């Protein structure tokens, strides 16, 4: 376990709001090995983005990490100083966001936006950094990369902008890339291209990826392992094949049972299928299991005690009383 690139232990992130304290992340454990692609799935509001932002320490000032460790190459990011974090971000951990249309600064040139991390973290001169940015743009499949350096974001399509974001993320050869729904905002045809690109380059650059998505199809095609998140906790973690073949947690089972067929006309994008009932209010959670209000197998114990995340088979952990030996 010690050779994991990232090892999140019992992470709790809370927000102070007018409705009380919103417990968005409640004890997340997550390990990512070298070169591994770990998928993080869960419905909207389950805390995927807050987990990612916690790792990057980019939580808005109304929120904070109240407990837990974020061990990255042996260093606890949860306790790192602002200075230390600035050296990690964009350098050893890079992040790709959901909205390529708004992730680039509209008034700065593409070349400057790709190369600034190289100047910041690698201390390259402007000319060196631009020349490397040009190579990077070539590697992410942008035609005529030299000319693109002088372009502004509005001159590029959404797919090209996301390629630019990938080039920027790879620039400093990070150990870990966190991609928060990198393809959700793109056309279906372009989604596949961008994912393939991300996975190819991840192999070439030898980094690990935390891939956050709503889309079970994306997970099955790209991830090595999957963590299913529910109400701020990991409900189940397993190898991709295991999770799709023998899901254990009632929530995961629900998701799998209603995976939409690819040729069906889909509402919105390929979102997680809807399971009856709603996500519990993270400011006023009931005692016991967070899934109790929607679970077909709920029993008395589920309402009294919160189940722990336990390894019930090799490399397969579940948070549910059904598997309490």
């Amino acid at each position, binding site marked *: 376990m010690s050779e994991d690139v990232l090892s999140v232990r019992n992470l709790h992130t809370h927000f102070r709001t007018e409705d009380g304290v919103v417990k968005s992340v409640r004890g997340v454990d997550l390990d990512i090995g070298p070169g591994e692609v770990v998928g993080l799935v869960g419905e909207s509001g389950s805390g995927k983005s807050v987990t990612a932002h916690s790792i990057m320490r980019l939580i808005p000032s109304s929120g904070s990490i109240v407990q837990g460790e974020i061990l990255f190459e042996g260093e606890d990011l949860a306790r790192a100083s602002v200075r230390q974090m600035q050296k990690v*971000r964009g350098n050893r951990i890079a992040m790709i*966001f959901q909205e390529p249309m708004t992730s680039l*600064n509209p*008034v700065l040139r593409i070349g400057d936006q790709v190369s600034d*991390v190289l100047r910041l973290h690698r201390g390259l001169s402007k000319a060196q950094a631009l020349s490397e940015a040009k190579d990077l743009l070539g590697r992410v499949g942008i035609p005529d990369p030299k000319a693109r350096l002088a372009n502004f974001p*509005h001159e590029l399509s959404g797919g090209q902008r996301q390629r630019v974001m990938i080039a920027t993320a790879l620039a400093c050869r990070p150990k870990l890339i966190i991609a928060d729904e990198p393809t959700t905002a793109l056309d279906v045809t372009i989604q596949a291209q961008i994912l393939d690109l991300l996975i190819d380059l991840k192999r070439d650059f030898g980094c690990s990826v935390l891939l956050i998505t709503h889309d079970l199809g994306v997970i099955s095609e790209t991830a090595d392992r999957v963590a299913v998140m529910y109400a701020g906790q990991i409900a189940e973690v397993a190898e991709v094949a295991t999770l799709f073949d023998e899901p254990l947690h009632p929530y995961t089972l629900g998701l799998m049972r209603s995976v939409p067929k690819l040729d069906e006309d889909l509402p919105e994008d390929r979102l997680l299928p809807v399971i009856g009932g709603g996500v519990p209010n993270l400011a006023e959670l009931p005692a016991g299991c967070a899934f109790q209000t929607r679970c077909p197998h709920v029993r008395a114990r589920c309402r009294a005690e919160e189940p722990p995340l336990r390894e019930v088979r090799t490399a397969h952990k579940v948070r549910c009383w059904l598997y309490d030996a």
Partner: protein
Amino acid sequence: MSLLIFVIRRLIYTVPLLVCAVTVIFILVHSAPGNPIDYIIGEAGADSELVARLRAEMGLDQPMLVQLWRYVLQVLSGNLGYSLVSSAPVLDLILERFPATLLLMASQYTLSAVIGVLLGVLAARRPNSALDTTLTLLSLTSFSLPIFWLGQMMILAFGYHLDWFPIQGMSNLREGYTGWRYALDVAYHMVLPVVTLTIFNLGLIMRLTRASMLQVVGQDFVKVAYAKGHSERTVLLHHALRNALLPVVTVVGLEIPGLIAGAVLAETVFAWPGLGRLTFDAISARDYPLLMGMFIFISFFVIVANLLVDIIYGLLDPRIRYQ
């Protein structure tokens, strides 16, 4: 190069604008009661032959449109007529005073823009913090103070009581300084009017910058900039501010006529020998040609200032430039 094309295109747009301004002023003056002949022949009256000759000489017998056309051409060739009071060419009178006004306006505006933007960024950094609240109160006060009152308070405090700064004029005429001593003397005389105008204009710029920064800071590319490892300072000043300045520049451009009104008041309070004073004197003396000349000149000034604003906007925002 596209920036150059952008500037040239904007320059071409200013010609019809200027013609419109002159036309409006022409129509306003011609729809006012009385005509120039009455001024010349006075109360006593004159025979109709003389009146007819004068009318022909001055082109007043021509149709309105011809008169307008001639007037526009005359103005465009730089002839604004002659002052009734001093008989000097109006344009000469204006150009003689213009440098003093330009100096005052440019200094105070540079100062208010730089300080206002920095304070705005500072306030937006921690919204609703003690610093933000204090700056908000100060800025609200700053643009609700009447400028002549503020000017007189400055004179009272720093002129009379503390006796730190001169309270009138642009230089010490008795000493007759030249060269850099003169420049220093002018700078010394400028302190109170510049500070007064800066305080007055600072508040609005600061409020606009703050609001605009708060909006920009919530956008994705700012989050991306932090995720790249940039420091807060770089993110705010390099990535966010350039975007946040766009609405500030727009509103400041719209405020230019108000700026001139403020300058007129401040020049009067501080006896600054600029256009503001000239306008004030022209109104008191009913010097119509001079007033008309001033209107046209101010229109021209506003048009040029707006052109500058457009260029700055184009420099800041590539999306405008490349359209």
